[in-house]
């Protein structure tokens, strides 16, 4: 009787029976081996370990208790009585269970049917049907939820054991209610996607590696940076950048001027300008002569004088003079463009990074270690670089916190500047004085070696002693090293500039002399050639005159080549001085300090000579001025850029080696400013300054009459007019003449000035807006801070974390449960029963039978769903479904469905 009633109820309400059947299934699993075997095909959970079984059992327990709590009030008394009537014998219970099992199985089948075909006929009434529809929707939702959980399982910060068990549970659930539908496929697709994503990541990583490998000297510079800080590294980065620029210039000049001339131009010896004069031929191959860039080198394609003024050369009809002129201009054009562009980019970068200053130290602390490092040497470098970067930031921080006697500081700074201006004036006067004297010397005969080289000697002495003097004076100012470096750079720059311009003035004098000399020579040449012609004509008018050997032709001084040679000499001597200084001043000193220290009376390493620091300002300025020489000289000595490329290449390796082997890091390692725009600014200034003399000579000095691509023209730029007139159609020449009209140029310049003014105003406005926004962000941050103070931490992530952080309590609990279970199960009383019994005792004293324990929920659910108050009975489960702390003990197999729906 009782069994049939149970069967009825089971048939009536899908959900109730299903839930119940789950419970039953569970029970059987625990208790009845026989039935478990029978159920094999549905019961996938056999492989489960004890822990999870126990888990479920306990969850079910909890769940039942809750059910009762919620629905006790609505339970019908009659039912209770019925239940009370049921015979509590074990046999009966068993049979009940069996019956339930069968009904359950039937139900399962039905459900599957329902899922596969839209609606299978069932014996249930329409009322019940609607119920199960609703339930079905919920079930589906739940299955979706589970699936989602499965797919995001790998993102959960749980222990693997927990992940595995939760995963299994979810999978079982899904499998049970959805069959094996499409599960395998999804997995495969996922695996494929995963694989592709991994491949993509790996490819990106390899590509990044490849890219960094393609950047020359990246590793070298990184190594230097890790030991000497970003300021020293910034010099090497600047050097590398210079090398890149020079490589382009080299390509331009060699590709468009030197190689065409060598390949297609007239060969050596065909013209006077391409031949060593007879008087010099004897010594032209001597090393001492070649070392001075005389002899064969002077009459080679490396210098201006070698080029012929033939309009076109070779079968390509290559317009070499035109190309020469255009390349000379484009060297400056390209350099200007590249310097300004990189300045603009640097400025952009420095503003873009500007707002992220909130977490300097935190990020350094928590994100600076690279977990991919597996090589001890790299690790050492990394440790060094992290330490260095911390020190840099500390220096910055201390600097910003410092407030001392501001008046004293100001006084000292003014004093230092006065002293340095005195030094600069003194050195300027000294140079002026020496140059004046050298002019008088040059007019005198047989002067000594010192008198001849006085200017150079004085200038190198100044260059050697002034920078350390400036540095000593700068100690008074007590600037932050980064700002101090800028001051130092500026001061030495001013000193060097004096140097450079005295050199240029001397050169100018030289050129003017040469020009005067040229006029004389031109007449002589003219007369010689004429006389030669006449004499030959006089002897034999019919025979063509025998050509005069090109070596014998009298020739002018060719001031362009002289200027070129001056620059090349200067560059080469600069290279030598730099390298020797490094070798002696750094390497030998380091060796001395290192090895003599063993037998010296004081500590050399800590005491007086000690190791050298890397002189950033000196090196940067050396580089900048060297580049200025290259720019000035490259028009008159096309080969100069080639020499410079070699120089930069060797100095990269040499200086890297020297720094690593014989320098020590600065006492106060400081961070280079994010953009090295200061270096760039110096470079731009020197570029402009070197443009001036070159432009002056091109525009206002007449080219030599017998050497170079522009010989025979009044001015060098005539080559352009010539090309336009001869090679372009007439209207182009007309347009050109209009464009060159001052009436057009002056308005154009005005327009440009106006544009600059406007853009400047706009950029100022943007800057203000930017500052405003920054301020707002700062305020927001403050606000956020305050808000956080008030808000309690309800972050689920946090609770996950708490869960993780208490591993001992968590891991111990499952085995305990398992033990409990082991103790319990032999008694034949399932853990489910305990709360059940308690419940029933409260309801009716007769309760306590096992069968009753199972019937109870089913009865409850019969009436419950119609009220649609499913949610109401479960207010005590506010925690989200995936929550690791709360639900596990309270969750039955199918049960999480409810709290999920409730949310």
């Amino acid at each position, binding site marked *: 009787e009782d069994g049939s009633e149970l069967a009825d109820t089971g048939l009536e309400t899908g959900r109730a029976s299903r839930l119940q059947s789950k419970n039953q299934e569970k029970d059987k699993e625990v208790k009845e081996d026989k039935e478990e075997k029978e159920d094999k095909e549905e019961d996938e959970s056999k492989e489960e370990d004890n822990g999870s079984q126990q888990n479920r059992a306990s969850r079910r327990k909890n769940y039942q208790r809750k059910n009762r709590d919620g629905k006790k009030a609505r339970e019908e008394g009659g039912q209770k009585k019925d239940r009370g009537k049921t015979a509590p014998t074990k046999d009966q219970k068993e049979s009940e269970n069996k019956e339930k099992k069968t009904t359950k199985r039937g139900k399962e089948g039905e459900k599957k049917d329902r899922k596969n075909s839209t609606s299978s006929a069932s014996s249930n009434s329409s009322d019940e049907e609607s119920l199960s529809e609703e339930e079905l929707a919920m079930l589906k939702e739940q299955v979706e939820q589970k699936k989602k959980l499965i797919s995001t399982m790998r993102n959960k910060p749980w222990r693997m054991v927990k992940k595995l068990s939760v995963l299994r549970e979810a999978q079982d659930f899904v499998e049970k209610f959805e069959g094996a539908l499409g599960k395998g496929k999804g997995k495969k697709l996922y695996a494929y996607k995963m694989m592709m994503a991994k491949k993509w990541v790996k490819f990106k990583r390899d590509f990044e590696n490849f890219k960094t490998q393609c950047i020359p000297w990246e590793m070298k510079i990184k190594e230097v940076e890790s030991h000497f800080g970003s300021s020293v590294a910034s010099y090497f980065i600047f050097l590398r950048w210079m090398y890149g620029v020079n490589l382009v210039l080299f390509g331009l000049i060699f590709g468009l001027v030197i190689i065409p001339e060598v390949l297609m131009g007239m060969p050596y010896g065909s013209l006077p300008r391409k031949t060593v004069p007879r008087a010099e031929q004897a010594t032209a191959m001597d090393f001492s002569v070649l070392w001075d860039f005389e002899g064969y080198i002077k009459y080679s394609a490396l210098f201006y004088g070698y080029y012929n003024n033939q309009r076109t050369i070779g079968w390509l009809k290559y317009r070499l003079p035109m190309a020469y002129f255009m390349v000379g201009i484009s060297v400056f054009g390209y350099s200007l463009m590249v310097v300004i562009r990189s300045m603009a980019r640097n400025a952009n970068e420095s503003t873009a990074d500007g707002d992220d200053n909130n977490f300097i130290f935190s990020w350094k602390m928590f994100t600076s270690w690279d977990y991919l490092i597996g090589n001890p040497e790299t690790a050492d470098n990394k440790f060094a670089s992290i330490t260095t970067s911390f020190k840099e930031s500390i220096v910055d921080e201390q600097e910003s916190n410092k407030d001392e006697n501001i008046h004293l500081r100001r006084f000292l700074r003014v004093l230092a500047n006065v002293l340095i201006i005195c030094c600069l004036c003194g050195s300027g006067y000294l140079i002026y004085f020496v140059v004046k004297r050298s002019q008088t010397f040059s007019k005198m005969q047989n002067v000594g070696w010192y008198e001849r080289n006085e200017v150079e000697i004085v200038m190198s002495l100044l260059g050697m002693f002034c920078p350390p003097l400036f540095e000593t004076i700068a100690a008074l100012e007590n600037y932050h090293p980064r700002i101090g470096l800028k001051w130092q750079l500026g001061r030495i720059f001013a000193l060097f500039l004096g140097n450079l311009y005295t050199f240029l003035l001397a050169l100018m004098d030289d050129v003017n002399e040469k020009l005067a000399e040229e006029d004389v020579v031109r007449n002589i040449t003219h007369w010689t050639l004429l006389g030669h012609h006449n004499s030959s004509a006089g002897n034999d008018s019919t025979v063509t005159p025998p050509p005069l050997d090109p070596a014998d032709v009298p020739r002018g001084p060719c001031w362009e080549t002289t200027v070129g040679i001056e620059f090349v000499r200067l560059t080469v001597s600069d290279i030598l001085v730099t390298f020797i200084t490094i070798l002696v001043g750094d390497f030998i000193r380091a060796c001395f300090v290192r090895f003599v220290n063993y037998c010296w009376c004081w500590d050399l390493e800590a005491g007086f000579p000690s190791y050298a620091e890397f002189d950033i300002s000196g090196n940067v300025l050396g580089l900048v001025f060297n580049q200025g020489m290259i720019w000035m000289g490259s028009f008159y000595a096309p080969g100069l850029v080639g020499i410079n490329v070699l120089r930069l290449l060797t100095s990269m390796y040499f200086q890297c080696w020297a720094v690593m082997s014989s320098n020590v890091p600065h006492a106060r390692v400081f961070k280079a400013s994010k953009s090295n725009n200061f270096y760039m600014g110096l470079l731009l200034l020197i570029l402009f300054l070197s443009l001036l003399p070159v432009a002056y000579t091109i525009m206002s000095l007449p080219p030599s009459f017998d050497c170079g691509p522009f010989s025979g023209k009044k001015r060098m730029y005539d080559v352009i007019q010539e090309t336009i007139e001869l090679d372009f159609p007439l209207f182009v020449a007309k347009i050109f003449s209009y464009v060159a009209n001052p009436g057009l140029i002056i308005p154009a310049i005005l327009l440009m000035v106006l544009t600059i003014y406007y853009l400047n105003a706009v950029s100022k406005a943007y800057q203000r807006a930017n500052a405003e926004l920054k301020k707002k962000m700062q305020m927001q941050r403050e606000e956020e801070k305050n808000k956080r103070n008030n808000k309690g931490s309800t972050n689920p992530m946090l609770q996950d974390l708490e869960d993780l*952080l208490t591993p001992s309590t968590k891991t111990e609990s499952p085995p305990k449960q398992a033990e409990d279970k082991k103790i319990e199960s032999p008694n034949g009383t399932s853990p489910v029963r305990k709360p059940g019994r308690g419940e029933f005792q409260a309801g009716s004293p007769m309760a306590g039978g096992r069968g009753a324990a199972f019937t109870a929920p089913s009865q409850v659910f019969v009436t419950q769903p119609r009220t649609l108050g499913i949610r109401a009975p479960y207010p005590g489960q506010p925690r989200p479904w995936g929550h690791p702390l709360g639900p596990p003990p309270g969750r039955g197999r199918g049960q999480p469905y409810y709290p999920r729906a409730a949310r």
Partner: protein
Amino acid sequence: MGNKQTIFTDEQLDAYQDCTFFTRKEILRLHGRYYEMAPNVVPMDYTKDPDVKLPMQLIINMPELKENPFKERIVESFSEDGEGSLSFNDFVDMFSVLSEMAPRELKAIYAFKIYDFNTDNFICKADLEKTLNKLTREELTAEEITLVCEKVIEEADMDGDGKLGFADFENMISKAPDFLSLVILREDEEMSENH
């Protein structure tokens, strides 16, 4: 794919794939590496889920971890007993979380654990000092360390309790430009080809 591999059942492998960012092959490779560290302790057959744990000393000598200043903390964070010995499950978990595919949030949680030396769920000054000393090999002076720690707290501590809770940490780390790429252990083919 080993057709006849008997280390794991297919179900186990599938479960691992669902719970980690690894493919079948990589899981087998990880097992290989786990096995190699102690061939006489770790069984080749994992179908029965044996309860085997390797001590921290073995794990931190892996090439991926050897140079890491936080290797002990990493291993401790992933060990279930909190003392540094890892079962195979923990081992897989560690590599999964520290793999390139793991999301930032997950990494942040474990990073927080790693930096929380005394496991009080807060990164306090003592933790910061330890971190700093490990990062710089104790080359900073005491004043510098104090200064840096104070600055970190000042920057990242949102709720003003003088130590970093997870919310603070996450807020700070989520803005870091290169955090995700940095907390990665690469379990590379080259490193483990020997399996």
